[in-house]
């Protein structure tokens, strides 16, 4: 009875203490420019006919790179690019491929020839392999993969031809908008707080315990799941990270390893379940943004 929290019924307006800077914000139907010199990028359109004006088709920030104008919406489905890391769920097992759901416009495809066979052999996939597909990946399994190719119709072809990718076993999945994940060189991090994280470009974040033992021998191909029990301290770290990420996502802060670590450090004074409160969430996010700004002022590292 001593742990009751009651929130005030007033509507809380988030204080926008941070300047918008010079961002040019547009809404659908706004005229971006009347100049015909510019090329249209994503998020813009022309009505053609006699009208030369460039209109915006989404609500977002206008980005101008030389002569290319595009409007980036704050939230959108994932559009793949070659080399991105994605985390997806197997939706269907088809004849020689798996259909993976990756929060994009159309489901992605993982060909049987794009996965590593157990034992690491390099050979042509036989009919037996095809019949045994379900023993590798079944419906509902979560995998991490890399985008190999983007087809003409927008469907992504994935591959797991590296020991870093494969079926994901014990951990926590957090789903955020893909626009919040910053594109960097490395998306798989071993955080200093004691857990590892995969920040997939499609907005699916996978938090798991750092693999200490080198259990991935040469030939396991990434499909063996470890079902060893995870101690309670590791679980708490994972939970805390998950709540921090949810807080940052709620306030649309860009997610990368530094911002997540700052949020984690700021959250250590609270219990894990307190992080679900709005007030605590705001405080943590404000501290994180402050620390990020300090870091930016200090060095202009990207």
């Amino acid at each position, binding site marked *: 009875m001593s742990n009751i929290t009651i929130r005030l019924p007033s509507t809380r307006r988030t204080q926008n203490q*941070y300047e918008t800077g010079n*961002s040019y914000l547009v809404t659908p139907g706004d005229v971006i420019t009347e100049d015909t010199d510019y090329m249209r990028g994503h998020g813009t359109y022309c009505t053609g006919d006699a009208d030369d004006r460039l209109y915006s*088709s*989404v609500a977002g920030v206008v980005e101008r790179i030389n002569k290319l104008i595009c409007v980036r919406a*704050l939230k*959108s*489905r994932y559009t793949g690019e070659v080399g991105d890391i994605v985390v997806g769920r197997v939706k269907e097992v088809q004849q020689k491929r798996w259909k993976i759901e990756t929060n994009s*416009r159309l489901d992605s495809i993982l060909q049987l020839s794009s996965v590593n066979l157990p034992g690491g052999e390099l050979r042509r996939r036989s009919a037996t392999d095809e019949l045994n597909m379900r023993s590798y990946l079944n419906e509902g399994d979560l995998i991490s993969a890399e985008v190999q190719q983007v087809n003409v119709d927008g469907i992504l072809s994935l591959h797991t031809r590296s020991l870093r990718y494969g079926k994901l076993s014990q951990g926590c999945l957090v789903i955020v908008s893909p626009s919040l994940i910053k594109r960097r060189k490395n998306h798989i991090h071993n955080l200093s707080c004691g857990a590892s994280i995969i920040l997939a470009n499609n907005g699916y974040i996978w938090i798991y315990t750092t693999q200490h033992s080198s259990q991935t021998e040469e030939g396991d191909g990434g499909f063996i799941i470890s079902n060893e029990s995870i101690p309670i301290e590791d679980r708490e770290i994972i939970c805390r990270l998950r709540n921090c990420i949810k807080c940052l996502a709620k306030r*649309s802060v860009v997610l990368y390893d530094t911002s997540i670590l700052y949020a984690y450090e700021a959250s250590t004074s609270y219990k894990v379940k307190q992080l679900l409160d709005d007030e605590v969430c705001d405080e943590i996010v404000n501290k994180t943004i402050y620390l990020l700004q300090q870091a930016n002022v200090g060095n202009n590292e990207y």
Partner: protein
Amino acid sequence: MAGFELISDEGYRFDGRKPSELRRVRCNMGVFTQADGSAYIEQGNTKVLAAIYGPHEASNNMRSKVCLDKCFINCEFSQAMFSSAERKKRSRGDRKGKDMSAHIKQTFEAAIRTQLYPRSQIDIYLQVLHSDGSLYCACVNAATLALIDAGIAMKDYVCACSASLTKETSLIDINHVEELAGCAEFSAAIMPKLDQIIYSELNGRIHQDELGQLVDAVTSGCKDIFAVIDRFVRGRLEETASYFTHS
């Protein structure tokens, strides 16, 4: 209509509004975290929730309706049992629900840039929590906000408003009592910046000469609603865009 005047002698409607006044509009975006886009709008007492899923791969039962060159819009409209004065259980596929879904689907097929999303499906789910007239209009406004929240490319906002004609004066934004009073009700959805009407509907009969006045009234009502919604969307953009540009 014995003893009941839609406009009093002083020129006020029975709920205190002037004939060209809209009801109070309040809205919110991003109310559901699970949906790709969501919005809530209140126009006076009419309260509607909208949720958008997509563009995504067509679900199994809609696979036959997939178009190769544009996306397929699936709209489902439903009214809660407690939304009207009388508690009435409405089944999903009843006539009014299907009608409304078809009209809204038609409206947004004209406004969403469907050629950008071939072979995909966009779901629009609308739920009426409290119905007090101008249902179609509130649904369209809610769906517009939700589509903007989802980041789906549209040619322009879609704002809808209703109007009615009584004693040579046009009343804007009809509520339930005025609907029942028996005058013709004209609803329209327009794209305000491009100045195009994309959907119009007339319930009842009017004289040909009165049509011009009604269309003008509805257009001005839609532009007023657009002003309110646009101000809200821009406020939201400013709040979230500032964090976005943080590296």
